Structures are given as C-alpha cells and as structure tokens.
C-alpha cells in the first residue's frame, strides 16, 4: 500500500427526500483491496456509481493519481482505468463468450485475436474460460468470469466488484480470491462491496463503513471481529438469532421421488427429489442460484403441481393441489423474487397482505372483501416486523428491498403456518433485519412448525438449520445434520459430488 490511487473528498449526493451520500472521503491506495461496507440503503451503490461516472456528485471531488477526476459517463471512467463488475450480469445468452466481450469494448479487435487474448488473460489469472462457448450454457460462476475478463482486458487500475460472491460456491469463491490477490500483487486496486463480513476479513486490507450515507469508520477488517464490523454498520448492537434445543414432532411434510420438467427453456428440471421435514425442524437447502431453487419452491407452494403422491402433508397426498388449497392446509411460502412474485409492486401493502392471507385470516365473506380487516392485518405485520413505511396504503414497490422482504416474510409468519417454505428469506436485507427474520423462523419452529429454508447464504443455513441438503442441477443431496458438516463438505455437496448424491440410485 504505497501511494494513493483514488482519493474521494467530501462527496455528497442528494436525491429528492433522501441524502444518499454526505461528505464521504477516503483513499484507495495502489495495490489495495478496499472494502465498502454498509446496510441496505447506506449509500454504497450511489458512491460506486459516482466513481464509475453513472451519477454526478452534488459537491465534493475525486482525484485519480493526483489529477482531478470527474467522469461524466462510464466510458470516461473506463478510459481512466476504472472497471466495474456488476452484481447482475449484462450478457446475452445466445452469443458466445468472445462476442459478449466484444460488445462491451470500445474498439473490439477481430474475433480470432480477441479469442486468443481471452485465453491468455484467463490462463494468466487462473480463470478457465472457453471463448467459443455460448453464454447460455455457462454457470453463474463462469458468467462472472466473462464479466471479470471483460474488465481485465481493459487493463484497469481500479476494479470495482459489487457483491461478487453471492452466486458462487465456496470453491469458486476460492478461485476468485486467488485471482483478486494476484491482481493486487500486480499493483492493481480493488474496491470490494459485500455483505459477507468473513470474506472481507479474509481478503481486504482496509474497510470503509457507511451508515445512512455517512462514513462512520475506516478500519482494518482483519483486526476487527465480524461482529464488531456488523455493529459498526448498524450503529448499535443487535441480538443474533438464538437456536434453542427443540423437540421434533412427527413428519409433517414428505417429498417422495418428485420429478418435474422445467416450465421453460431457462428453468431447471427437478429430478427425483426425496426428503422429509418434521414438526419443529428447520431444513436448510443450499446451492448455487439456478439449480432448481425456484422450481422446488413452486412445487411445494402449489404453483406447479406434480404427481399427487410426490408431496405428502401430514399423511395426505397433496401433489395435485393448487396454492389456495395448500394454504388452507397450512402450507405457506415466500418466494425469492419480491417484486412481481411475492408482491405486486403497484398495489398497496394492504392489497398485498390480502393476496395470500385472504382465506387464513378470513378477510372475505362470500367473496366480498373486508378491507378494514385486511388493513388491520397489514398493520399488524408492519408493526411486528418493523417494516418502515409511511402507511399500509403505500405501494409495495416504493418500499426498499429489505423492508419489503420483512413484509412478505412477516405476512406468512403471522398466519401461523404449519409448514413454511422460504427462498432467500434475507436476500438484500441488512444484518439487523436479517437476524430478526431468522429469529422469527426459529420461533416458528419452536411452535412446532416445519420450516424449509432455501438459501444461497451458507452462513445463514449453518446458523439456523438442523439438517442441510444442497441442490445441484435439480437434484437434492441427502439431508445431513448441519452441526456435523464442515464448509468443505458443504461445498462438495453444492457442487454435486457423487458420493453424497442419493438420486442416482
């Protein structure tokens, strides 16, 4: 860590009604891996957008290598040697790797030259990638490599990475970290945004922590504990979920030899899945995104039906029942995608509460809705889960992601489910709120509900689940007690190692 590469001084950016960043200053040195930490809405993305030229700061300035730096657009930022890997990939499925990379370049060379360059870069940084492969057939980790190589071909001085590990298996994370360390050794700087505190402690030299748009601390993450970092982010101490020993009841939900073809070309087929959940038990299902998580939730919620005997609830075959009938039995679910799936963005919270609670909370009589009662139920959810919203009449889409997540999970939890299936329950939710949601799930288990948590956050699954299984290409590994598993074993299960697989029998 020698001289300063990029210096930010007093950056402020206000949007109508909110101050996204206020007087933020810090330095990124040459060859430094700098972490940017903060809760949802702390202003991380606005700050990064200012550096990348997507947003113009109201006041404050940046200097790059000692000269003033004010990019008006991403192209200018790239020309100055700043590259960014976004959380959501912008790749075309139908094109191959080299074509996708060429699309993001100012002056792409000939395809054959480019392919050679790609191979060279991918080998020297230990990121295996075939330039002629079609992107549609790549895994999430490989897609990320395409984005990283696209950036590296520009020979950047500063690489910005937004939540890069959320889609990777532990083994893929190791590969990525090796690459990042190599870049660091070459004197390149990295600005690393992540929620995963352990990763930051392992990788980053310095961390800047943002809270409510202001910088609250700069520290050396290796010298602080994950808990200290989290408390700095939140600004107060919070209670970690407490797992108390529970008595397991009878088997509530059983899935037997469940196979289901994917609904469309981009879905994943489920292949002979077997597992059971007992009352009072939390089953965690891990796996890299796109390995059948959505489909598993759909066949359990009733959005997709299956052979009747494939899903058994309390001794009753329910595979052919739709969502309404399953809700009546007490099987509730919370899908991953908040906007458009778990909630309708243009409808109010009251209407969204009504959406899944109409029968269990008897919010309608002979089909005629009782809006007053619906609103009271919505307000109950808002209170119990600390959803920050002006009122129950606010459209769901105008809530921040974390607040809406609290609402959609709360909506199901408050209906006293007997089985609750959730996918990515704390995705994009800040540490304190995530802890509250996990606690609510554990509390439900204490009341003898069976809980199935599908998640890509391994720490979350290890924290709350009693048994763990992993989805890989639509197959589910055997469930094993979580406390007996090491992270390596979990990684192998996620990668679909065959000795752990039961479905091929």
């Amino acid at each position, binding site marked *: 860590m020698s001289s300063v590469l990029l210096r930010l001084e007093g950056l402020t950016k206000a949007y109508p009604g909110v101050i996204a960043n206020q007087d933020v200053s810090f330095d990124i040195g040459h060859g430094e891996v700098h972490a940017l930490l903060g809760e949802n809405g702390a202003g991380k993305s606005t700050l990064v957008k200012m550096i990348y030229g997507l947003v113009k700061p109201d006041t404050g300035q940046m200097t790059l290598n000692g000269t003033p730096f004010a990019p008006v657009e991403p192209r200018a930022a790239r020309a100055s040697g700043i590259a960014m890997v976004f959380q959501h990939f912008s790749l075309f499925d139908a094109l191959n790797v080299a074509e996708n990379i060429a699309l993001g370049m100012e002056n792409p060379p000939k395809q054959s030259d480019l392919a050679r360059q790609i191979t060279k870069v991918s080998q020297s940084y230990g990121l295996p990638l075939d330039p002629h492969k079609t992107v549609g057939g790549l895994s999430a980790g490989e897609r990320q490599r395409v984005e990283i190589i696209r950036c590296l071909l520009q020979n950047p001085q500063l690489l910005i990475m937004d939540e890069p590990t959320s889609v990777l298996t532990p083994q893929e994370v190791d590969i990525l970290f090796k690459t990042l360390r190599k870049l660091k050794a070459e004197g390149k700087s990295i600005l690393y945004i992540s929620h995963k505190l352990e990763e930051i402690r392992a990788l980053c030299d310095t961390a800047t922590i943002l809270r409510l748009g202001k910088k609250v601390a700069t520290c050396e993450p290796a010298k602080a504990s994950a808990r200290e970092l989290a408390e700095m982010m939140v600004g107060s101490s919070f209670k970690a979920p407490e797992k108390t020993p529970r008595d397991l009841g009878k088997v509530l939900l059983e899935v037997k030899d469940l196979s289901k073809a994917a609904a469309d070309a981009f879905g994943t087929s489920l292949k002979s899945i077997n597992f059971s959940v007992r009352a009072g038990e939390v089953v965690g299902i891990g796996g890299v995104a796109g390995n059948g998580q959505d489909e598993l939730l759909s066949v359990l*919620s*009733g959005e997709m039906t299956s052979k009747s005997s494939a899903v058994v609830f309390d001794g009753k075959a329910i595979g052919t029942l739709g*969502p309404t009938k399953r*809700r009546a039995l007490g099987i509730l679910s919370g899908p991953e995608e908040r906007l*458009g*799936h778990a909630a309708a*963005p*243009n*409808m109010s919270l009251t209407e969204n509460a009504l959406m899944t609670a*109409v029968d269990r909370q008897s919010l309608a009589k002979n089909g005629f809705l009782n809006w007053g009662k619906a609103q009271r139920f919505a307000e109950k959810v808002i209170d119990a889960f600390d959803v920050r919203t002006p009122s129950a009449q606010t459209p769901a889409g105008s809530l921040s992601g974390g607040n809406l997540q609290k609402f959609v999970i709360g909506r199901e939890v408050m209906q006293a489910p007997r089985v609750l299936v959730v996918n990515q329950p704390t995705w994009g939710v800040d540490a304190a709120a995530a802890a509250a949601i996990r606690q609510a799930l554990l509390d439900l288990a204490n009341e003898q509900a069976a809980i199935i948590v599908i998640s890509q956050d391994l720490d979350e699954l290890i924290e709350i689940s009693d048994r763990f299984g992993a989805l890989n290409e639509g197959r589910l590994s055997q469930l094993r007690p979580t406390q007996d598993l090491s992270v390596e074993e979990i990684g192998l299960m996620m990668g679909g190692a065959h000795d752990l697989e039961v479905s091929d029998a």
Partner: protein
Amino acid sequence: MMLGKPPLEAIRIIFWDPLFDPNFAAYSRPQLLVKAAPLILIAIGLSLGFRAGIWNIGAEGQYIMGAICGAGMGLAFYPTQSVFIFPLMIAAGALGGWLWAMIPAVLRTRFNTNEILVSLMLVYVAESILASVSQGLLKNPEGYGFPGSRNLQQYSSAANTEIFVGTGMHWGVVAAFVSVIFAYVLLTRHIRGFHIRLTGEAPRAAKFAGVVPTRVIVFCLGISGMLAGLAGMFEVSGPAGQITIDFNSGYGFTAIIVAFLGRLHPIGILLAGLLMALTYIGGELAQLMLGLPGASIQLFQGMLLFFLLATDVFTHYRIRFGEGK
C-alpha cells in the same frame, strides 16, 4: 380550420348545441343516452379484460352475434305475443356474444393463441354471417326483396321500447348503468375483481396467490362478450330496429377508446361513454350545419385517444433535448 370552417363554432356545435341549443336539444339529449348505452356496456366488459391484460379487440363481432341471436330468438316467435319473448331475447343476445368470445378464450387457453388476433379476425367472420342472415335466414319475407329482417320496433313483444317516452331511456341504458355498478363493486369489493387486477399488475404474483390464469381469461372474455352481445341485442330491438347488412356501426371499436378514456375505471367509463356519444351526435350536427366531412369526427375521436395515451407517456417520462446517454 384546415377544412375552411370556423373552429370555435365547430366546437360549439359539437359539444354545446346538442345539449343546450333549443332547436336541437330536444332531439339530441335522448340520443345521447341511446348512443352512450352500447358504448358503456361494451367498454365496461372490455375494461375488465384490459385490467387483467387480456385484450379483447373483437367486441364488434360479439356485438353483431348478440344482435343476430337476440333478433333471431324474437323473430322465431313472430307473430306470437308474450311477455316472455323480450327476456328470452336478452338471454339469447348475451349467450350469442358470450359464445363468440369463447372462441378466442378456448383457443387461448388450449393452444395459447393470441386473443388479439383471433378476436379481431372473428369480427370479419361475424360481419359475413351478418350479411348472410340479412339476405337469407332472417330476411323479411314481406320486405319486397330488400336485404334486412322484419322491424322489431313494429313487433311489440320483441321491441326494446323507451321506458320513459322522450328520454331515450331504453332497457339497454338500464343495463349499462347496472353494468357500471356491477363492475365497480366487482373491482373494489370482490375477491374475483381483486384477482383480475392482480393478474394485470403481476401475473406471477397472481399465480402465487392461487389465481388460475385460465379461469381469469375465460371469465373476462366471457363477461366482455356477454355485455357486447347484450349491447347488440338492445340496439337491434331498439334504435336500429332490424338486422341489416350494415347494422354494425363501429361501437365495438369505439368502446376500446371509451374504456381507455375512462381509465378502465367504471365511473370513468360512464363519463367517457357520454362524452364519446356527444362527439357522435355533435359530429352529425356539424356535418349538417357546417358540412364537415363525417371522417373528421372519427379523426377527432382517434386524436382523443392518441393524446390521452401521449399524456400517459409524458407523465411517466420526459423528453430530453441535446445529447442523450
């Protein structure tokens, strides 16, 4: 102006004179309800589908089929007199429109065809059937060989008469008002209406909530077909009086404008239907008084929708001049 007519006077003649000019109001005011009723009836049905993202463009065809079935039912009893004939005709009209709308509904749910194309093309099929029956099956045997059915206005059991003489208030107007109230209650108070709105807002969320998409499609197309059929039936037994080759006058298409002009809201549609009817009547008056071509009023109606949609665009987006990003 471009047609060489005084613009302000034209606007006065279109929007003011039909309602308040002593010479015309007596005739025009009842006409307002007569013209508005089918528009409102059809538009209410269409708006339910549009709310759910189901685009029935073929209300004109359902309107024709409702008229043919309703008139056919009445003529089958000719010359018997009975109080049951008119209610039977209403049922037949509704059924005719409903069946015609079920064709795109079934094709959509079974084979995933596009209901826009199917319903639109069925309009032309319906027009051909209309031409055929008015020269064949339903032709007036005492009509001296002219195409067209008997005049139902002269067959009292089948006539859709004015309830209050001189007001234009026939049974179709009553049906239109009832449909407005029905749609309002459905959309704001009933779970089915909630599911329709949910389907339009977020189809995946609707499925998650337990809505069966097939049922919403069949329900929405069914209701809109039924209401369009009713409108056709009330028209043929009332203001039009008989089935003729050119019986349909574009109400089914104009109703699409009415539905959007009313913002797909029942009360809005009621007002939009009255406004659109006013442009029809005022337009006729303008043709008479100023010699404006008939097409110019259609142009005006089209522009109304065009500017409304433009307003929507500009409330959500703004134009930026200069260098784009």
